[in-house]
């Protein structure tokens, strides 16, 4: 397998937590460094990225690839007004795009793996549908976004657990997994199926080799957490503590990537359809974003695409 571009899926469970804004901002910063950067709008059925990069009428979109109008994914890429920044838009996706069939999803994942860009950022939708989970698992570098509100935190925990669960599920066929679920129910009582840490334990007992493989996988993940829309009076240590809890109780290592301050100007910039970073470069939020991009897109490391290439 050849070395691929750096892929950062950005997800967060809750809608409105700033995934798309963060994707577009990180994309602009990465492009600003001279890296050939591609944004892919995988918020299927609720695409926004084209608006955030000021490209209201993209000529091509992701659906063209799914509908076989354009055979190669790289041909659906459109240029944006920003230098070095490219986009696969979801603006005119077909109305049934949200329910991407399995084969199409696999086709997409494989195509993404073959794209030739320096950096690729995936903007994922809210919720924990299989599409979102599988796109998130395409890379080791997934980024979770949450805001300091119980609703958002609840959803991000659920997303993390779902991803964990999905990864385990990948390793088994239907009947074996059914057997595992029953075993888990028997061992830990009802509801254990929904606790990936319990499922992992059952896997360890029944399939030690698969357990080692999954464990290996998870040790390779470099998930990150971003705490977005932090108000002045919010607890600035919240992100660290969330990561600690996940590590302690789920056994998953997630690195805290940083806080992004709340700013009403973000709203203004989106309404005016201009780049927030350019319009308000000296706000605290802009500073936070630049810091974040240092720890996210500017870090180099081994990037691997798993399962699909």
């Amino acid at each position, binding site marked *: 397998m050849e070395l691929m571009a750096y892929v950062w899926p950005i997800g967060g469970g809750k809608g409105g937590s700033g995934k798309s804004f963060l994707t577009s901002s990180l994309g602009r910063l990465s492009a600003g460094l001279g890296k050939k950067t591609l944004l892919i709008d995988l918020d299927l059925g609720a695409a926004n990225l084209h608006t955030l990069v000021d490209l209201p009428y993209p000529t091509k979109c992701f659906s063209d690839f799914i509908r076989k109008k354009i055979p190669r994914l790289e041909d659906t890429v459109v240029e944006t007004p920003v230098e070095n920044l490219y986009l696969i838009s979801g603006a005119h996706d077909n109305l049934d795009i949200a329910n991407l069939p399995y084969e199409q999803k696999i086709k997409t994942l494989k195509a993404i793996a073959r794209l030739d860009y320096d950096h690729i950022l995936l903007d994922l939708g809210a919720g924990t549908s299989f599409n979102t989970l599988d796109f998130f698992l395409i890379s080791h570098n997934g980024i979770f976004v949450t805001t300091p509100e119980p609703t958002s*935190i609840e959803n991000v925990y659920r997303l993390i657990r779902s991803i964990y669960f999905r990864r385990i599920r990948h390793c088994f066929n239907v009947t074996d997994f059914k057997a595992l679920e029953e075993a888990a129910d028997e*061992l*830990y009582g009802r509801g254990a199926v929904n606790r990936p840490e319990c499922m992992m334990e059952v896997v360890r007992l029944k399939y030690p080799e698969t357990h080692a493989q999954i464990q290996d996988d998870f040790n390779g993940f470099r998930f990150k957490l971003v705490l977005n829309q932090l108000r002045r009076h919010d607890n600035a240590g919240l992100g660290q503590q969330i990561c600690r809890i996940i590590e302690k109780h789920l056994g998953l290592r997630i690195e805290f990537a940083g806080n992004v301050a709340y700013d009403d100007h973000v709203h203004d910039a989106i309404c005016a359809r201009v780049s927030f970073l350019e319009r308000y470069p000296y706000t605290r939020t802009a500073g936070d974003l630049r810091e974040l991009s240092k720890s996210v897109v500017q870090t180099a490391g081994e990037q691997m695409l798993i399962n699909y290439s």
Partner: protein
Amino acid sequence: MADMEGKRAVQGKFADLNYYEMLDIRPDAVPFEIRHAYQNAIQMYEPGSLVSYSFFSEHERKEILAHIEKAYLTLVNGKERQGYDAELVRRGVLKGDVCREKADKKPVSIFSISRSSVLQPVCQKKAELKARIAQCPRIGAIAQKTDICGADLQEIREALGVTLEQIADETKIRLDYLRAIEASEASRLPAPVFLKGFVKAYLKHLCVDPGEEISTRYMAALSVQSEGKAS
């Protein structure tokens, strides 16, 4: 049986941690660090916490909090901690030589309040003062007087060999008020409500009985005197 073991393996994951791991501290942490870690842990796991919102069921949360409580109470107690450390060493979790220095570093207290050492002399002083009052007929005579003025109080105090500074230190009454009381200078004294309390405290410090009555007489004399001045 097998299923009981399995149950413990995961559900007890937190319970299986040793107390140091539960609180995220090193085995050589000093009590100050332990307290700090405990407060952090409570903040993370308490029922209303934003950090762990929806992460645990009600039951799990209760269990975790109970473990943290137990860990904290064991580790802050020097003796219990020694016992616990010994057990960890026995189980091979801790190495024997990681033992802390004998004298734990303690946080430096900001106020050196050592009540026990102060209380003792005060009691002794009181007994001494009472003995002196009993020996000195002059004090008894003053205490019997109908109108008591500042000079009388001063005489008692000097007879007992107590300085104004000592009284000020003990009663926290300002020195200039004490001087004004002895000089019967109404103009420099606070309002009668406060003044009566001050005089009582002054007399109490000197162990002169009955403080209440004498102070009433002092107040009466003072008001007569100031009225006389006014007219």
